[in-house]
């Protein structure tokens, strides 16, 4: 039922926070080799990147970022946010992004999971945000809509974003992981589902894919914690970005899916050490979530860019005085939209529907 997509419609965008990508790229080779890959090096990374041969690749580093973006922007493409530069310069329809400490997972039968193919399938099959299907993805093989599901909603809407999951080191926050030091996620939940409209979710950036042409500008590198570090436990940028995307998708009638594919996230870092830094993020969420739950976008906002500008203004107005990190985030969002309009895809995308 999915649309057949061409290989040249996909970019794999990797933010390199570590210099030696040999194992990473080799393990992902079966899934990545068909596609064009963009690697963006964290500007703070001093060492040269080590990347194995045999990929259709473009690598961007600090000089490229400085050249394209200039110095007059508040957006910082450092750390995990370096990947957003890849989103900006990509010219493909779909983008798939995984953290550089993640490898392909195996399903319960022992087969390697092709996360790229699953994300593509998620994005090219409709989403169903207006009514919950208790058998999860109705377009999956062997499944369908259940009794009681209104027929008028069975066509679904475009899926703009696919949020995958993680085996081994799940994306818990530092306090949780510190408390459950040995807990690893071994539960493979064989489902993809649409996140219902108006429901918010923490969209982890560790394993995502999206239709750049539909929602590109909504993935904003905006929320930078004062103590942001090089571990996911020390960031909230993706969570913030994901909330923006969800608000925009809900407003424009686009879908967001969660569930498969799984990737295998390798053990890295020390949650107790990260605890000090991430605590800031944990506290901020208490303000962030009620804010996003109450954001209402005006009917006149019909493009992604217009929506993001509205959200940015709301952030500035309602959260700006609470913590300087929000004022900075609002400015970064506005700068991002300007950047997107000048450097990103030349035609601005209107709402789907």
């Amino acid at each position, binding site marked *: 039922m999915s649309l057949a997509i061409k290989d040249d419609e996909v970019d794999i965008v990797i933010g390199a926070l570590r210099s030696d990508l040999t194992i990473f790229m080799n393990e992902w080779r079966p899934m990545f080799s068909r596609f064009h890959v963009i690697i963006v090096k964290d500007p703070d990374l001093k060492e040269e990147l080590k990347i194995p041969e045999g990929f259709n690749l473009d690598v961007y580093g600090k000089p490229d970022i400085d050249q394209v973006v200039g110095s007059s922007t508040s957006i910082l493409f450092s750390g995990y946010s370096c990947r957003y530069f890849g989103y900006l310069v990509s010219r493909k329809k779909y983008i798939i992004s995984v953290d550089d400490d993640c490898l392909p997972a195996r399903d319960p039968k022992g087969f390697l999971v092709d996360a790229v193919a699953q994300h593509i399938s998620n994005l090219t099959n409709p989403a169903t945000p207006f009514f919950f299907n208790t058998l999860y993805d109705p377009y999956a093989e*062997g499944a369908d809509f259940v009794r009681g599901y*209104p027929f008028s909603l069975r066509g679904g809407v475009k899926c703009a974003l696919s949020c995958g999951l993680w085996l081994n080191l799940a994306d818990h*926050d530092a306090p949780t992981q510190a408390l459950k030091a040995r807990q690893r996620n071994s539960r493979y939940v064989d489902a993809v589902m649409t996140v219902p409209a108006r429901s918010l979710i923490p969209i982890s950036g560790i394993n995502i894919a999206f239709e750049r042409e539909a929602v590109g500008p909504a993935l904003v590198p905006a929320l930078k914690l004062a103590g942001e570090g090089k571990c996911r436990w020390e960031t909230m940028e993706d969570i913030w970005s994901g909330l923006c995307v969800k608000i925009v998708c809900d407003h424009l009638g686009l879908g967001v899916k969660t569930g498969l594919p799984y990737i295998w996230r390798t053990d890295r870092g020390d949650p107790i050490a990260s605890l000090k830094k991430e605590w800031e993020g944990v506290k901020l969420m208490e303000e962030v979530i009620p804010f996003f739950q109450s954001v209402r976008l005006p009917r006149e906002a019909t493009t992604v860019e217009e929506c993001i500008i509205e959200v940015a203004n709301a952030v500035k107005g309602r959260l700006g005085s609470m913590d300087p990190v929000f004022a900075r985030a609002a400015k970064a969002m506005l700068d991002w939209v300007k950047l997107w309009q000048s450097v990103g895809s030349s035609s601005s995308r209107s709402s789907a529907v």
Partner: protein
Amino acid sequence: MATVSPTPLLKDELDIVIPTIRNLDFLEMWRPFFQPYHLIIVQDGDPTKTIKVPEGFDYELYNRNDINRILGPKASCISFKDSACRCFGYMVSKKKYIYTIDDDCFVAKDPSGKDINALEQHIQNLLSPSTPFFFNTLYDPYRSGADFVRGYPFSLREGVPTAVSHGLWLNIPDYDAPTQLVKPLERNTRYVDAIMTIPKGTLFPMCGMNLAFNRELIGPAMYFGLMGDGQPIGRYDDMWAGWCTKVICDHLGWGVKTGLPYIWHSKASNPFVNLKKEYKGIYWQEELIPFFQSVALPKDCTTVQKCYIEISKQVKAKLGKVDDYFNKLADAMVTWIEAWDELNPSGDISAKIPNGASK
């Protein structure tokens, strides 16, 4: 959530309600799991027929004559010749929790081959909180091996009481008649190892085949409508109860979970018979869904009964024009609450409307 303590049996706090028209042989397979519990059997159809209950079960059985005797004129709200009559069992139960199951549902096996104790899983679901205000991408955070993900606000991690646990089905999936006709051979073989809270503000199709709920919290909302004999519609009983229940749970701040446990659904009903029953529903649900999505319950509806009566008023006002059936249904909803309160006079459960929390 460090240690996994054994699930309490709750054998004196839970009733199993089973509607039946034929026999209860299926209970033999469930015996290891059901025997400690009290059963309420609601016999539909011909009351002169004797339903044989396997030995060793503690039960009470009600046929149509009993329903008429107990409810008098209010018995008109209980469907005849439809499994919707099961809600009579909810009304006469004196327990805190209800588990209801169809008589063509058997014990399923998990992927490791082990028999699934569906009742135990439902109890776990009901006894652990729900999280309707923010979706946890790792599903049920209270399950062993899982937790809340990064970004999940700590202030929401206590969750809210769980009112409903909606289980699923392997083998014959719960499809509507048109889907059954198109895919007669499709079987659900996908075991999705997850339980999740359905977010606040989201409706879902609630299937009554494998369902448990906290009767003390949400019982009065579990009215399965007017179906079957003399009615223009069938196979929408559980749907109706589910939409009312979800709207009320959202209003009163309680959670509805779906996912595990699975049971094995063995019998595919005749799709042509189903089509005749569902036919009107397929058109009506196009009106019903927007109706339920827009129901606004005023703040002074602080009990389930008050919420339910309010919904019945709105049904009459807004759906009466779709079909006169909805006028009858609205009246029946009121009759149901009156009957419920008569049979359960110990008072209603008030819920403090949660303030602050989201939309």
